[in-house]
């Protein structure tokens, strides 16, 4: 891991990166110019792959390492590539650097400080997938990151690492940059495809998956920019040295040292909070953490020994998601917390499918009712029923995971709900009334 922290670290090594600085990294930029990147051995791995390795070699390497997507879902990269390769070309590649969750600007940091790692990863993937055109999809508001990326693409083209005859003519690869704005749902992979095609950034129904029918109906591989940025390291040092890999996380909430950190997979959440986060914020003891962004799970203190990993998290009903890890201190009422998240989602849904567009809003309303001391016992059943509708029937990952906060708080913090409903008070005495009346069930007149 020490190596990772030195040569292969994705972000500047100088401690946690503050999440709120626009392009001005406190530690100074480490690898932002191609010269610095080359000096650290950059593009060597790509060069070797492009000139010496076959598709099968690269796929073999991926399979051996078991690398999984870092965009949240943790889908095995090799399997995604095989699925794309099973379909006739031309194929496209999209690097998702959108950072849908505003609390976890991981790719923004990556683009601002280490854009060539991403570009080198794109080169490796393009070579293996037979891709000639790739897009980096990012939020339009991250202007510094976009500026840096544009400069990096120009540098790489100039030095022959990108372009129609890169690597001495062995690779033809054009990298386009697509700046978009589509809210939280705009980060979903098929929403990215819609946006790139010139449509409103709304997710598409899967199946068909992008590997079968993506950009303009062609097989397309969509990866988080972070996944791709890990490829050079994997290709250079091999699967063993790469190990389980690491994940960028955004620590936030009631933690002593909030910011972006890079943490090896397998580290227990508790250790992440103490070692990287400096423990809870002054005077706080954590009630819970939320991992994975606005739709992520809320885990109680007792589950903090869960290691960071796709499968381990799945077992406790959580997922890596946006990579945000938020500490919820003593003063956080779980009903209010769930309400706040749900309200955010109700404003961010792309509006395409009914369960998500209307369901998030109605669930927010019911949670507001409970918060306002107007809750009834049957409200819990209502939350369950419509939570189930969302997670069964929504079109995309947004709606399907939208009820996670609700469900995990209802499971792990049932007492918070009970106290609100039965005793008419807030367990942390922080809730204020948001409604004057709750929803009523009424028959057709």
């Amino acid at each position, binding site marked *: 891991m020490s190596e990772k922290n030195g040569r292969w670290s994705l972000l500047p090594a100088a401690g946690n990166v503050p999440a709120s600085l626009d392009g001005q990294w406190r530690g100074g930029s480490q690898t932002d110019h191609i010269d610095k990147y080359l000096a650290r051995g950059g593009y060597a791995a790509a060069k070797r792959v492009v000139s010496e390795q*076959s*598709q*099968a070699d690269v796929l073999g390497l991926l399979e051996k390492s078991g690398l999984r997507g870092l965009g949240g879902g943790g889908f095995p990269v090799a399997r995604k590539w095989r699925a794309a*390769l*099973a379909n*006739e*070309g031309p194929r496209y590649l999209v690097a998702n650097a959108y950072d849908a969750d505003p609390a976890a600007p991981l790719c923004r940091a990556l683009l601002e400080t280490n854009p060539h790692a991403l570009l080198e990863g794109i080169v490796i993937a393009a070579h293996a997938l*037979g891709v000639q055109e790739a897009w980096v999809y990012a939020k339009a508001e991250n202007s510094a990151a976009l500026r840096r990326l544009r400069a990096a693409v120009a540098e790489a083209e100039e030095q022959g690492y990108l372009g129609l005859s890169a690597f001495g003519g062995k690779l033809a690869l054009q990298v386009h940059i697509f700046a978009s704005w589509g*809210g939280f749902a705009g980060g979903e992979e098929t929403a990215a495809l819609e946006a790139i095609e010139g449509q*409103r950034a*709304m997710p*598409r*129904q899967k*199946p*068909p998956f992008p590997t079968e029918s993506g950009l303009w109906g062609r097989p397309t591989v969509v990866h988080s920019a972070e996944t791709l940025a890990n490829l050079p390291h994997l290709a250079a040092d091999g699967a063993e040295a790469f190990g389980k890999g690491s994940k960028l996380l955004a620590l936030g909430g009631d933690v002593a040292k909030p910011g972006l950190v890079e943490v090896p997979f397998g580290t227990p959440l508790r250790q992440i909070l103490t070692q990287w986060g400096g423990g809870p914020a002054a005077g706080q003891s954590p009630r819970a953490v939320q991992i994975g962004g606005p739709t992520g799970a809320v885990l109680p203190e007792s589950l903090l020994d869960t290691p960071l990993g796709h499968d381990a998290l799945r077992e406790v009903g959580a997922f890596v998601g946006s990579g945000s890890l938020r500490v919820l201190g003593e003063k956080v009422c779980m009903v209010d917390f769930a309400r706040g998240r749900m309200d955010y*989602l*109700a*404003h*961010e*849904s*792309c*509006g*395409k*499918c*009914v*369960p998500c*567009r*209307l*369901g*998030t*809003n*109605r669930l927010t*309303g019911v949670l507001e009712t409970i918060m306002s001391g107007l809750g009834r016992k049957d409200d819990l059943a*209502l939350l369950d*029923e*419509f939570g189930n*509708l969302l*997670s*069964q*029937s*929504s*079109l995309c990952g947004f709606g*399907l995971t939208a009820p996670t906060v609700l469900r995990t708080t209802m499971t792990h913090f049932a007492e918070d709900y009970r106290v609100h409903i039965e005793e008419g008070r807030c367990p942390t005495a922080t809730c204020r009334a948001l*409604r*004057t*009346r*709750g*929803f*009523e*069930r*009424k*028959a*057709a*007149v």
Partner: protein
Amino acid sequence: MSPEFTEFHVPPSRVIEPHPQHADGHALVKLTIDDREVEAVASVTVLQAAQAAGIEIPTLCSDEKMEAMGGCRLCVVEVAGETRPLPSCSLVAAEGMVVRTNSEALRQLRHDTLELILSDHNAYCQPPCQINCPTHIDIPGFLEQNAQGNWREAATILMQVLPFPATLGLVCPRPCEDVCRRKLVEEPISICQSHGYHGEQILEDPPLPWPQEAPTGKRVAVVGAGPAGLSCAYYLSLKGHKVKVLEALPKQGGMLRYGIPEYRLPKDNLDLELNRVWALGAELECGKSLGCDFSLDDLFAEGCDAVFLGIGAHKSNKLEIPGEELPGVLTAVEFLRRVGFGEHVEVGPRVVVIGGGFTAFDATRTSLRLGATKVDTVYRRSRKEMGAHWTEVDDAEHEGAQLHILAGPVRILEGVDGRVAGVEFIRMELGEPDARGRRRPVPVKGSEFTIECDTVIAAIGQTPDLSCVGNEKDVRVSNRSTIVVDPGNYMTDRPGVFAGGDATIGASTVIQSVACGKLAARSIDAYLNGEDMAQVSQRILVEEAKPDLISIVPYKPVTSRMPMAMLPYEERQHNFACIECGYSAEQAKEEAARCLQCVCPDASRCYLQKLSLEYGVTTNRFHDGEARDFHDYKADTSHSFILRDLNKCINCTQCVRMCRDVIGPDCYGLMGRGFDTIVTTPFHASLNESNCVSCGACAETCPTGALMLRERQVERYDLDISRCIFCGDCVEVCPHGALAESPYFEFAGYDRFAPMQLSKEDLARAPLYEKPREKPPEMRDETHTPVMYPKLPRGWKE
């Protein structure tokens, strides 16, 4: 690319094997849908495969002409091996797939999805008020006219089913208002008083609902000049039949005159209104009583072709307690009738009224007006079960009556003078509900108490006095002592003899009696035309069947109900002046404008309504939220014939895809985000500001009433029909935009529900449209007057 790559270009799964071939050369796949083996052309969706096999899957956002979008989530199906249901509209059928299109879980998902849609669907299919009104007045229709001050038009709408709107405006217990949807916002529309208002405006000069038909030469006798008989007479006369009304009492009106007191219903106006029956040529003969002065056989012998019996329910029910025969014990009907005759009836000074219906409260309040100083009204159940309208109960209390609930009479006490001295009561509790759902009163042991009084008025219901038909054969009487008729055609067992009103249903209401009279008239007319009466019965029953309604959450800004000015309580003492002061024209207009206009011209064709009924969305759990929980859009009627009401839009994007992918102009899109997402034009602009080519395809594909076509006017062009191919090129190329600018030009006549409506010949033969005399309106001009456009369909406002 280097040669190694080729191994992936034809992956093992893609190795071409011989496929089974469809007759026309397409590859086929076999899948199982709902346990049935189904064969489908490869590349069709599961939805299409199911449809082709005759298996129905609900959809709201797919159209075979367009690519699937997957937004409505109604077409979800269970696929073996998948962790959650998938939308069949975008799922490609694959070999060996096992699909289930219906299960309890899927039903629940679809139900909840529809419930969500209806929780933010600010419009309504059908007017519940009209459905609940026994005679089905087109309430939103007349309120719409009222709101514009068109009293005659409003009255014309009303008179189609109710000849006496002013009278009903004063006495109807308003079943319509009980279900008014506006109640879900704040208070119901004051429907009753609204038709009362315009009823008064046309008292002297009533319009006819439709022109009276030419005399048919048929004669009908109507027995009883109450609301049932007179309504029947009115509609039969309109049909051109000769009607004679025979009434036992000296004047017309039945219980309206001899039951309902003057202070609620002034008799001068009543006569003005009832006289419209005679204005149509019907005749009234008073003082003629069936059973005494004539029999049914006499009527037929005189040449009548049919008879209607509307003899009401005038026999008071007995208290069946000791002391009932003492002097000073009256029945309410007898009491009110004598007051109605103009007699001076002595009561009190202390009166006990027993009962909780109209009659009880009329007797109570009449006693007070006649000078009683203490009136106790005693009812054995609770307020909720009272038959009288709550306003009357309130008024009685305010006028000075003492109300006692949950007490039943045990016996009437005799005084030393041999007259009534008081009544002994016993307290009651409510027990199990009876057949009508009213909870039965059960006496509480040992809770007896006495109220002293000088007069007892029993008002515990009336039953028809059927002694007059006792000797008539084939006129059957039920064990509830009502005349038995066919529920659909109102005919008794004796052909040609019909009956309705209180006489067939027992003591009921004026409006129910009017409804009987109206339907009986319809049925008698059919009988006189020699129709098969069994079929007539069927037809009327189908027409009268209560349609199912779905629960849609309404949202409109709160506007409270226009209060009715009432005579102050102190001015009501000892006189019979009418207590309702009536609305002013402005008030009546304002109140009518509150109506939500629960009429959607798309009702019964709308897929959302159809599916919601199918999935039983008869309740909604999201009523009564805050304003921010709902949307209230303004309808866009600026286009010459494409009408848009976003309140009914379900964001299915069929119009978006139709306009963009099939037609081309790309006028619509999803705008806004999250809960506020809505399909509309950019910036909500008028369609006139877009590239709209006025083809109407969007309205044709819209599954709801959100996009609709206005009635279209055809302008005549000098064109050579034999050569026009309706390409529309002339519109495109006219250098002055003359054709495109005209709101009336059209070259397509399709809509979703009818085939081609206009042929070329129609177009050439169409009458010249009369141009407005003022300066021709310009489409893009703000001041452009929509008056130019043809009438809007129901429920739309300019």
